[in-house]
């Protein structure tokens, strides 16, 4: 019953991909979507973030789950579930209102098209998930989040403590082979560059690989991802059979390297 809390918008229609319309607005996107949130921003975001795709439509199989109201604008939790769609290549997450709309891109690879993480929100806004399938088509879902705001323009909390440089790149992680879950937390300020005198300082990407180097999943992060990014991934049951490597780097060249043990936690 608590599911009613969550603001996933579900349009009861089979996705139909509209063709390029001859009379579209000048500078508008190739496909005009009847946006349930009517922010007037969607066309712009289609062009800027998705490269103005020719095949894009609302799809109720893209579920975006988030609380109606952001209790903590620095760490807004969100889950994207596109498991009802097969052959997912990429999931792009972005907001309509905020100084930096693009949150991240997820390339699930061997993982399921499902991701949980947290991000910074600057004001009340729809958050959108655009899911690209291997045929190139985009499937769009979203949720509206209310917020008191301010999450993007404030300095990271880490600077209040003395040991943030020692903690930089520290990874907490655990694998649950039975349920196919993998969780990681990477210590990093993730500075947006919007706070006075603090330049952009962000992790650019995290790669998940087998010990043999085989790529399993990739996340490309942007400034709105929260301080100390926290990700949950899901794999098919039985797919996790060995330790996993997680690696990445930030825009200052700091490397992130860790191995997620197969047994998960030492308990």
């Amino acid at each position, binding site marked *: 019953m*608590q*599911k009613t*809390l*969550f603001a996933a918008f579900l349009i009861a229609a089979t996705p139909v991909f509209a063709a390029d319309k001859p009379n579209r607005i000048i500078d508008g996107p190739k496909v005009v979507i009847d946006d349930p949130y009517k922010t007037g921003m969607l066309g712009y975001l289609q062009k800027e973030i998705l490269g103005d795709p020719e095949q894009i439509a609302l799809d109720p199989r893209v579920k975006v*789950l*988030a*609380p109606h109201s952001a*209790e*903590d604008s620095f*760490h807004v*939790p*969100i*889950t994207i579930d596109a498991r009802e769609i097969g052959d997912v290549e990429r999931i792009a997450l972005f907001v309509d209102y905020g100084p930096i709309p693009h949150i991240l891109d997820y390339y699930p690879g061997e993982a399921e098209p499902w991701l*949980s*993480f*947290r991000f910074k929100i600057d004001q009340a806004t729809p958050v959108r998930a655009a899911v690209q399938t291997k045929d190139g088509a985009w499937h769009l879902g979203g949720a509206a989040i209310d917020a*008191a705001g301010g999450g993007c323009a404030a300095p990271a909390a880490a600077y209040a403590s003395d040991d943030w440089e020692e903690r930089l*790149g*520290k*990874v*907490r*992680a*655990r694998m*649950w082979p039975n*349920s196919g*879950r993998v*969780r*990681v*937390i990477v210590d990093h300020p993730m500075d947006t560059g919007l706070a006075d005198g603090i330049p952009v300082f962000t992790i650019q990407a995290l790669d998940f690989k087998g010990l043999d180097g085989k790529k399993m999943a990739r996340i490309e992060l942007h400034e709105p991802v929260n301080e100390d990014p*926290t990700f*949950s991934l899901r794999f098919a049951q039985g797919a996790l059979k060995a330790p996993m490597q997680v690696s990445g780097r930030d825009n200052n060249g700091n490397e992130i*390297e*860790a*191995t*997620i*043990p197969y047994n998960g*936690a*030492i308990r």
Partner: protein
Amino acid sequence: MTLTRRTVLATGLAATAAPRAWAKPRLEYGLKPVQVADGLWMLEGSTEYFNFENGGNIVNVAFAETDAGAVIFDSGPSRRYAEELRKVVTEMMPRGVAAVVNSHHHPDHFLGNQVFSDKPIHALEETKKQVVLHGDSYADNMYRLIGDWMRGTEPVPPNTMLTSNDLTIGGRSFSTVPLGGHTQADLMILDRATGTALTGDLAFLDRTPTTPDADLPRWRESLDYIASLDPKGIVPGHGSFDTEGRSLVQTRAYLDWLDGALTDAAEEGLDMVEAMQIEMPDEFAALGAQPHEFERSISHLFGDYEKAALPEVN
């Protein structure tokens, strides 16, 4: 003529003989004190979350009669509330208001302070510190949550620091006990004459405890301490007057359940949105402001639980 919301409302009033629900001329809390013990009254707030209908009147405020006038416990969520409170108290007690006490720094408990800034406003030092730190952002957020009810409200910190366990005003003496756990500093007051405990938000009754600044182990110790005093009556921070200690038992049970549920969720590898969907036992799902407060608690507390469940691996 430009139609503003105000002119539209005025036109609506003029056009109809009977008052209409949406055309209330003025927002009013309609505060009605209820006597709960000898010389002690309580103003019971709703057990909902803040909204435009309740105007933030979700909090309990109490006052005690002394030879010097009334001592008011917590000042309410807004200037408007506190103005009504002062009027009601002054009508009942010719000496008016002698002093105010703030139990802790949450907005519904202190945002009425500005109406009493000519009187001593007692609180713990840490409470003052937190009001100074967060008062403005609380007020901003309250404008967002209850709108016009907040008009003219400014955060005013307490002006008189409590330095001992005794507060005597106008011949009436109170034990002032510095506790914590709901926030960094929670003041519990025992009215010695009647044996009534004014717990602030350490105790809730039939309303979900809130956790934005919670330290669960410390909170549970504070509840044990209050229970050990065996108070004759309890004015909880939210919920009805309690003569059976139910508020202490219920708050404790909810905190215990919350602690266990979050531990289990983190150990199973759930993320926050999934944890927000955990099925609650009926007794907790039935509390006021659910499931909203449980969802908020996940945001406040889950980070520590997941850190405990995820070992460092590099």
